[in-house]
């Protein structure tokens, strides 16, 4: 299956970006073949609607799950509408995130875990 991991960079060894809506990149990984694609996030500078735009990007990329640090309410709602499973508290590199997913290490989110605009700051 395809999963999307928020990433600070374009490589498998890039760090997981703790933000969803304003993540620098989305790493789209096929968990079976490990085929990998880094999609630059055009929503980074958005004043509003970043989470929604980012959710659409990962839905359109065919991802069935999202792995990230934190996810705000608008993004969570949009992902839910697209039946995308959301995993939060994910850390490490993109490669480690994928391994962790396969090993069932990551916690599925019960809802958004941060307020809106969380990713505009320095966290």
């Amino acid at each position, binding site marked *: 299956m395809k999963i999307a991991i928020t990433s600070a960079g374009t490589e498998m060894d890039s760090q997981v970006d703790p933000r969803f809506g304003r993540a620098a990149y989305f790493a789209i990984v096929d968990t079976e073949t490990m085929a990998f694609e880094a999609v630059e996030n055009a929503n980074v500078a958005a004043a*509003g609607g970043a989470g929604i735009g980012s959710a659409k990007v990962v839905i359109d990329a065919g991802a069935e799950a999202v792995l990230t640090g934190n996810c705000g309410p608008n993004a969570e709602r949009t992902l839910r509408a697209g039946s995308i499973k959301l995993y939060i508290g994910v850390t490490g590199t993109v490669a480690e995130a994928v391994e962790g997913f396969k090993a069932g290490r990551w916690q599925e989110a019960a809802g958004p875990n941060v307020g809106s605009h969380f990713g505009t700051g320095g966290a």
Partner: protein
Amino acid sequence: MGEARVIAVASGKGGTGKTTVATNLARVYAAQGRAVQYLDCDVEEPNGHIFLKPRIDRREEVTVDVPEVDAAKCTGCGECGKICQYSAIVCIQDQVLTFEPLCHSCGGCWLVCPVDAIEKKPLRIGEIETGAAGDVGFVSGRLEIGTVRTPSLIASVKQHVNSDGIAILDVPPGTSCPVVTALRGVDFVVLVTEPTPFGLNDLKLAVDLAREMGLPFGVVINREGIGNRDVETYCQTEKIDIIARLPDDRRIAEAYSSGKMIVDALGEYRDRFLTIQNYLEQARK
């Protein structure tokens, strides 16, 4: 008398004295038996009420229209999501999600829906208080915390302008869309500045804006003496009228700090506001 006259008191920089000028000017008009209103368009941080101490007769809620989708009628065509520039209405597979705080009320989604599945729903953005402070008609907007619809609320406040008297608009600081909305269609803009580098920098931005909007304007220099003469020189070079000056008097700051009107607390400065009024009478012609 009886001629409609809408005067905006604005500035690029915050804290230059817009509210001081607007409130005291309104009192000066009223003292001469002129029909006058003060409208606080600084809806994010309205302060006029602190000085005018109005009696409020009415409080009305202000709403804007946002979309509400009838899921039963929706065919999942995606047209609404396509037209929305603000991610306020979004189509995910066959669901339509609305994100009301992002909506600009452009109307695109309900216009474009082929099956009339989108209704208009009111979203509260703030409130408007109307009343009177002695002989000064009082109108003030107050934006709901967390909403971004400042221009919409300002437009609603302006709808309360009485067409048979003087209307003084207290405008928010800056030069972007809230200020543009406040200034649109006014007869004259009084730009309040301070003679400092920040004051001059921001005055130039405000002048650019007034010129771009084709509005006549003049300058009031507040706290004269604190900085340098660059604002003065700029106005002379640009042939901008300096309508009046207020000195840097600590007593003005102290009176202001406790919510006192200058025309009450420091009557010797009354004539400065009369000077502004006289100028505006002449400018009408």
